[in-house]
C-alpha cells in the first residue's frame, strides 16, 4: 500500500466533532420554500373550503342549486392568481431569505421549481377534489349540475382531467409571477415593468389552450388554432412552462441583494 492511497484527499470538511460540514441539501431548501408557501396558501384553501361548506348547508336544506357549480364559479376561477402571488414571492422573500443564509441562487431556483410543482399538484387536487365533493352534494340533493363547457355529468376521468389541467395552469401562473418579479430585480423598475407582459406569456398561453373548467380548449381558439388532441395542448403548456422556468432561473442566477 503506497502513501498516496493511505492519504488520499477527500474533499470534505469536518467540524471539530468529526461531522461532515457542507452546504444544506436541496431537500432542506425545497422544504423551506414549499412549506413557506403552504403556510399561507393552506390557510386560504382551508378558509375557502370551510366557507363553501358553511354556505352549502342552508342551501341544501332550504334551497336549490340546479344548474351551475358554485365551486367552479366561486372557487376554481381565481386560484391561479394565488399562484401568481406565490411566484412573485420567490425572489423578494425566499431568495433573499435563503441567499442571506448562505444558499446559492441556483439552489434557490431548484427549490422554487420543486415548490412550484408540489403546490401545483396540491392546487389541482384542491380544485378537482372540490368538484368531486360538490358532485356528491348534488347527488344527495338530487340536483342536476352543468359545468361551464357543457359537461352535465362529469365522471372520474373528467374530474382528473380538470385537476391535471389545473396543475399546469397554476404552475404557469407561478412561473409568470416568478418571471415578473425577477425582471424587476434583473432589469430595473422601468424595463422590469415593460417586461411584465412578456412574463405573463406562460399564464396567457395556459389560459388559451387549456380550459381548466372542463379540460378542453376554450372557444376562442376554435377555428383559429388547429384542432389537436387536448394532450398536445397540455404538452405544449408543459413546454412553455419549462422554457419560462429556464428563463426565470437564468434571471435569478444574477440577482443582487440591496445593501
Amino acid at each position, binding site marked *: *500500500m503506497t502513501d498516496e*492511497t*493511505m*492519504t*488520499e*484527499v*477527500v*474533499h*470534505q*470538511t*469536518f*467540524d*471539530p466533532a468529526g461531522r461532515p*460540514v*457542507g*452546504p*444544506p441539501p436541496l431537500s*432542506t*431548501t425545497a422544504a*423551506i420554500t414549499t412549506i413557506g408557501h403552504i403556510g399561507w396558501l393552506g390557510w386560504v384553501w382551508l378558509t375557502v373550503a370551510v366557507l363553501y361548506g358553511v354556505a352549502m348547508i342552508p342551501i341544501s336544506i332550504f334551497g336549490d342549486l340546479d344548474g351551475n357549480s358554485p365551486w367552479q364559479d366561486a372557487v376554481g376561477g381565481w386560484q391561479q392568481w394565488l399562484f401568481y402571488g406565490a411566484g412573485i414571492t420567490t425572489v423578494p*422573500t425566499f431568495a*433573499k*431569505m*435563503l*441567499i*442571506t*443564509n*448562505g*444558499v*446559492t*441562487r*441556483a*439552489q434557490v431556483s431548484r427549490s422554487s421549481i420543486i415548490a412550484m410543482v408540489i403546490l401545483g399538484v396540491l392546487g389541482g387536487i384542491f380544485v378537482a377534489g372540490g368538484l368531486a365533493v360538490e358532485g356528491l352534494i348534488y347527488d344527495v340533493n338530487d340536483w342536476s349540475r352543468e359545468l361551464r363547457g357543457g359537461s352535465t355529468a362529469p365522471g372520474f376521468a373528467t374530474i382528473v382531467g380538470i385537476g391535471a389541467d389545473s396543475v399546469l395552469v397554476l404552475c404557469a401562473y407561478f412561473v409568470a409571477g416568478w418571471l415578473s418579479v425577477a425582471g424587476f430585480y434583473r432589469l430595473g423598475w422601468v424595463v422590469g415593468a415593460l417586461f411584465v407582459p412578456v412574463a405573463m406569456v406562460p399564464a396567457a398561453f395556459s389560459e388559451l389552450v387549456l380550459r381548466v373548467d372542463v379540460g378542453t380548449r376554450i372557444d376562442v381558439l376554435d377555428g383559429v388554432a388547429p384542432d389537436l388532441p387536448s394532450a398536445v395542448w397540455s404538452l405544449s403548456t408543459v413546454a412553455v412552462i419549462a422554457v419560462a422556468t429556464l428563463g426565470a432561473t437564468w434571471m435569478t*442566477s*444574477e440577482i*443582487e*441583494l440591496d*445593501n
Partner: protein
Amino acid sequence: MTFPIATSPTSSGQTSTTPSGGFVVETSGLHVHFGRVRAIDDLSMRVAGGTICGILGRNGAGKSTLLSTIAAFRRPTSGRIEVDGDAPFENARLMSEICLVRESGDFEKGTTVGQVLELGEALRPRWDAGFAERLVERFALPRRMKAGKLSRGQRAALAVTVGLASRAPLTMLDEPHLGMDAPSRYAFYEELLADYAEHPRTILLSTHHIEEVASILEDVVIIHRGRVLMHRSAEDLRSEGVELTGPAEAVDAVTEGLRTLSERHLGRTKSVVVFEPFDGDRARRATEAGIDVGPIPLQDLFVHLTSDTNDATSNNGDTSDETRS
C-alpha cells in the same frame, strides 16, 4: 484505504486546510459600481484568517458594499475577490460558510424569532443551537414575536445572535449592533470575544462605535471613498500615531519635518497629532522638553484620517496600499 482529511476543495483543484482558524479574505483591484457611482473603487486588501478585523469608514465609504460583495450578495463589477482561495459568488461551499449580518437583519417580517433560529439551524452547517438559545435568553428576545414587530434593538440582538451562532469561518457583522443599547452592546462584545477564543474564525466587524470595539480589534482596515486608506494591526496603528502636548515652541521643534494630522492651541500650550513612527530619540527629546507624549485614541485617528481636510492623506501612496497577511 481512504482516510478523510479535513480539507476543502478549491476551483484550482488545490485543497486548503480546515477553516477552524477562519478564512483568508483577499481582494485585488475590486470595483463595484452602481451606475456612475463607484462604491468600491480599485480596492485591494488581504485579511489573514483567524483575526477580528475592524472595517472602518465614514458613511458612504463603501463598507457595506464591500461586505455584501464578499458575502456574494452581489457580483463585483470587476476585480477579484477570494475567500479561502476561491471566488465566493455562487460558490456553494463558500456561501454556506460565510455569514453576513446587517443592521436590517434581513429577516422576513412575518417570521418569528424562533423561526429565524430554525432557519439558521437548517441552513448553517456549523450552527450551535445551544449557543443561540443562550444568546436569545441573554438578550431577552421573545421567541414567538415576529421579526417585523421587534424593536430596533431587539432586531439587532437577533442579528448578532444569528451571526455568532452560525460559527461561520468568515463571519461579517455590518453594524448590526448599532440599534442596541449600551449594556446589550457590551454583552455582545463579551460574547463575541469569548466565542472567538473558543472557536477562532475570521470576523470582519464594521462599526461606528470605534472606541468601544478598539480593544477587541486585532486588525484595522480604514476605507475611504471606496478604497483602502489604511490597513494596519490595531497595535501598530495606535503606536504609529502620537499626540504631543506641551509648550508650543518645544512642540514645534520636535515635530519639525513630521507629518502632522492636526494642531490645537490653548494659550501657550500646543497639542499636535503626529502620524509617523516617533522613535526613541525623538521621544527622549520630547520628554526632556516637558512634552507629554501619548497615544491617540483610534477614533481620533480615524476622524483625522478620513476628515475632508486630510483628503491629501487618502491619496498618499504611503498608506493606501497597505496590506497585511
